[in-house]
């Protein structure tokens, strides 16, 4: 019974964190892009005419959702009603459940109970995440089909083709990481990055697999269909590609899916390449500085530090993806497919071979 309650609380925490972060990222995108482009951004909705100082929070987080959820909810003429309503839901469900396999801390010791700070400790954790990411294709395909609009259908088919093309380099770079760390469970991978090389440098995954990091980052951004890979939803060309015919709450759902996918990519990159929740030199009972001094801390403080470090790293990678979005121009569709099939797949296969050779020889 207590186990069930603990798992329930952990899952609820993860779900709420992800949904909240999705909303925050929407604001970061709006205001961050404004700052990057040397403009002010949305600032018309304010309290008492001035607060909160042109930050645009009320506009994005209060006015926009109210507007989106009170818009008329229509189904285009001739479109399949059931599929049109179902497509955003099918897009949303897999990305929400992906985060349960990502660890956000080491252990929390309460009394005599040691709680693993990971909502579900799966033996096949990474494969589960790949499975849920590959289910995201259905939202795109059904969204395009259910709109009774041939441009939306084209956008949907292109988007689905792009997503399945970039799943392959994503999976192959994960193979190299799994070979290095010897486990599919993300908590084991995060824990294995805790020891120090030469007594000073924390053994984070990026030192072992730099090429896999780059390939995974590119493939992850392409998988979540963000710029520079956002031809399926090209905002300046196809209006919105596969979700042209959606308005109101359904469009809000598709946009939320976009942000949650980028949170997933950020979470995976942190867990596999940047130590997850690891703080350098911090072990379960305190700081073990390499020059010998030990600062011991209670386990709750250690857990808080680790969760804080994880959150900071995930926020950094989400911010990085938003900055990339507003800096780079868009790929053409054939350039996109060429990059995946002729560039990333041979690179990631070569990476796997080199990793295998190095593991065999060392």
């Amino acid at each position, binding site marked *: 019974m207590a186990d069930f309650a603990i798992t329930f609380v952990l899952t609820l925490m993860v779900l709420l964190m992800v949904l909240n972060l999705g909303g925050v990222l929407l604001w970061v995108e709006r205001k961050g892009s404004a700052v990057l482009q040397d403009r002010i951004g949305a600032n018309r909705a304010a309290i008492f005419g001035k607060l909160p100082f042109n930050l645009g929070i009320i506009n994005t987080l209060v006015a926009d959702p109210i507007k989106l959820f009170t818009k008329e909810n229509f189904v285009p003429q001739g479109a399949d009603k059931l599929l049109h309503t179902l497509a955003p839901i099918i897009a949303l469900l897999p990305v929400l459940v992906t985060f349960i396999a990502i660890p956000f801390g080491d252990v929390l010791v309460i009394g005599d109970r040691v709680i693993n700070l990971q909502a579900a400790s799966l033996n*096949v954790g990474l*494969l589960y995440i790949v*499975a849920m990411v*590959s289910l995201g294709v*259905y939202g795109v395909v059904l969204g395009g089909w259910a709109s009774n609009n041939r441009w939306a259908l084209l956008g949907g088919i292109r988007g*689905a083709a792009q997503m399945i093309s970039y799943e392959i380099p994503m999976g192959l770079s994960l193979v190299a990481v799994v070979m290095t760390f010897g486990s599919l469970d993300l908590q084991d991978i995060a824990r294995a990055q805790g020891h120090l090389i030469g007594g000073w440098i924390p053994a984070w995954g990026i030192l072992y697999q730099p090429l896999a990091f780059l390939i995974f980052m590119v493939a992850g951004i392409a998988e979540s269909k963000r710029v520079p890979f956002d031809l399926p939803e090209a905002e300046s060309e196809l209006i919105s590609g596969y979700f042209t015919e959606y308005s109101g709450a359904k469009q809000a759902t598709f946009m939320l899916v976009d942000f949650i996918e980028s949170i997933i990519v950020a979470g995976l990159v942190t867990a596999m390449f940047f130590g997850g929740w690891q703080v350098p030199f911090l072990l379960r009972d305190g700081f073990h500085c390499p020059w010998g001094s030990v600062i011991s801390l209670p386990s709750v403080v250690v857990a808080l530090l680790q969760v804080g470090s994880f959150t900071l790293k995930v926020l950094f990678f989400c911010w990085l993806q938003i900055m990339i979005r507003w800096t780079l121009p868009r790929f053409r569709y054939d350039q996109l497919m060429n990059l995946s099939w002729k560039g990333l797949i041979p690179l990631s296969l070569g990476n796997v071979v080199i990793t295998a050779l190095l593991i065999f020889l060392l």
Partner: protein
Amino acid sequence: MDYVTFFALALPLIFVATMVIVHPSPVYSALFLVMTLFLLAVYFLFLEAHLVAVLQIIVYAGAIMVLFLFVIMLLNLQAEPREQQRRGVHRAALIGGGVLAIELFVLLRRLPTGDTPDRALPPGFGTVQALSERLFTDFLLPFEITSILLLVAMVGAVVLAKRQG
């Protein structure tokens, strides 16, 4: 797996599988088949086959069915009215299916393993480690042949679907 779980999974499975072959629209048939594959993956989880369940979702529900949906949408297949069959085909199919069902039922109840209790599962049953140990030692030749088979299928599919000239 206890009886409640079994019937909670088996009855929706049979219903959804029937809808696959009965529904007039191909897109809905494909979606019902995806639901069947999902229910089967959950079923595999209850039978302690973790890796197989996740692979079922990645390979079947995530790749093969997407391929089916692609083809249906490229050919723009709409829901068709009641198919016109030659006389008696419906009856013949159902009678043939019924005979097959009765045969399988009788056979499967009489298997030699039918009454023995389940053997105790070794620890780590169905995990990645257990399967990979067997896969790369005793099943290495089928593994390599499967990879060649997939290569042949890829080349064949690309050659077939290319537009001439």
